[in-house]
């Protein structure tokens, strides 16, 4: 049995032992996504009505390929952190909750791998 007071137990990294890590990573992603999402919307605008060759040529440029990769990575990371909170808020049964939390991570990995594979194939 611990002789720690309840206050001591939650100080530092807190009762969940992760501290503000989740909050902080969510904000880092959010800050990064402000310019990246603006870039994405502007790029989509520029590509409206363009044919496939023009879109491929656009994404084959190193700056655009890297920006697109960063956008995908930052968005999927920010997404899985956000969806995690939604699952934790609404799903209270331990089994389904753990299954959904795993599915959430796998979804981000799969979509991310598909996007990055496509990007490499387009750009190289």
């Amino acid at each position: 049995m611990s002789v720690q007071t309840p206050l001591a137990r939650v100080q530092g990294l807190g009762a969940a032992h992760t501290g503000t890590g989740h909050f902080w990573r969510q904000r880092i992603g959010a800050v990064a996504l402000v310019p990246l999402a603006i870039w994405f919307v502007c790029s989509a605008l520029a590509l409206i009505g363009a044919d496939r060759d023009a879109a491929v040529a656009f994404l084959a440029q190193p700056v655009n390929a890297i920006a697109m990769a960063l956008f995908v990575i930052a968005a999927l990371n920010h997404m899985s952190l956000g969806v995690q909170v939604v699952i934790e808020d609404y799903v209270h049964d331990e089994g389904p909750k753990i299954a959904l939390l795993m599915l959430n991570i796998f979804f981000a990995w799969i979509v991310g791998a598909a996007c990055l594979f496509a990007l490499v194939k387009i750009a190289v």
Partner: protein
Amino acid sequence: MAEQARTAPAARPLSPHLQTYRWPITMATSIAHRATGLALVLGTLVVAWWLLALAGGPQYYDTFSMVARHPLGQVVLFGFVWSLTYHLLNGIRHLAWDIGLGFDVHAANRSAATVIALSLLLALAVFAYAYAVKGLYP
């Protein structure tokens, strides 16, 4: 009477929830932030499909274009674009709150209305540009 109330509690909500309150605008923006965030999960699939279709070759890209230009595809794309502009603008609002800016009731109400109007305007502008300037009709 009091004893009866204790043994058979009325079936009322213990904590008033969404359906009980008249929605303040800040409540609507908060709920919409989560809703658009979830909609953007589907948006990642649109982006992934677009990239895979580009990488796959003309026949795959034709399929993507055909679906995207279909009226239903346009509705989905509008939902995606508005979710993105809304979540982006309201996200900036949240980041401002994180550093302590605009957190009083009047400022929050005003920024809520601004975010709703501006996000719709931006999304409509994207589609107006596509239809009117680029001449793309679905």
